[in-house]
């Protein structure tokens, strides 16, 4: 593609289409966008290279990008808006008197966007989200408490109970990563729906 008037018209058209289709799930958006582009390219092959009027006519026949987007259902409210909140609610809702997390779970189970597997995953990894992780971190056994006393025989003695510090930190880290991973997974599934 060079920089002829014809390329410019086509580029403007596709750019406008992209803008209008932006709220669609990625798979659908790509298919529609790809097909429209293929349509323009095929129609252009039947035209002389400098036939500007021909390009205008073909874009006219193709219809307004707005019309295509409307047919694609790219309306503002078709987006799954309560579902969009779920990852955030599951992660952070626990800090809002736990109610936020419960609301997230309620939407998760009520929505047709996710399969059973996703719903179970979203609920159990991790219960109460990051609030759950924090509570785990505060459990008496989760991190070690050390008591140093002495000197006994000329040395200070340290006694620790609970998990060794590295193991406790590791578990916390795994829980945090798992929470975020599940939240991102749920969001991806929603976008594909």
């Amino acid at each position, binding site marked *: 593609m060079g920089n002829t008037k014809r390329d410019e018209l086509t580029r403007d058209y596709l750019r406008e289409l992209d803008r209008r289709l932006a709220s669609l799930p990625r798979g659908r958006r790509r298919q*529609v966008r790809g*097909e429209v582009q293929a349509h323009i390219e095929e*129609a252009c*092959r039947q035209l002389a290279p400098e036939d500007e009027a021909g390009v205008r006519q073909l874009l006219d026949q193709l*219809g307004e990008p707005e019309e295509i987007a409307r*047919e*694609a259902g790219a309306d503002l409210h078709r987006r799954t808006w309560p579902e969009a909140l779920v990852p955030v609610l599951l992660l952070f809702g626990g800090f809002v008197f736990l109610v936020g997390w419960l609301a997230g779970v309620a939407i998760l189970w009520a929505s047709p966007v996710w399969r059973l597997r996703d719903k179970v995953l979203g609920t159990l990894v991790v219960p109460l989200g990051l609030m759950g992780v924090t509570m785990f971190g505060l459990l008496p056994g989760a991190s070690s408490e050390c008591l140093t006393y002495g000197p006994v025989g000329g040395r200070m003695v340290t006694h620790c109970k609970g998990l060794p510090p590295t193991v406790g930190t590791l578990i916390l880290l795994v829980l945090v990563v798992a929470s975020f991973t599940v939240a991102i997974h749920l969001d991806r599934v929603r976008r594909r729906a």
Partner: protein
Amino acid sequence: MDATLSTLRRMIPGTDSNWEAQLRRGVVEYCVLAALRSRERYGFELARSLGAPGGLLMGEGTVYPLLARLRQRRWVETTWRESEDGPPRRYYRLTEQGTQALAAFEQGWGQFRTAVDQALEEGG
């Protein structure tokens, strides 16, 4: 859920007044299915045959989101095929489900058309 939504829409004045667009919207996807009955076709072909002025589409381009929807519903399936004069093309083909949907529509449409014709004649 869908029923509630359409009831709500009917309650908002003006949103349901464009009967032609509404009707077209409900019917045109079956016309796309019908166009695929005899053989598989690629998008450009379908757009040109259904998008003729005064035809069923609001513009050739609207056939593409429609096809995407039919595909998501598994009424059509697609295959990429090489073409002689350009990049590969995505061909659309009716599935068993699509064939059944089309048959059901044809039957219902016949009855609907008769009922509307009768209502219009009796009313006049």
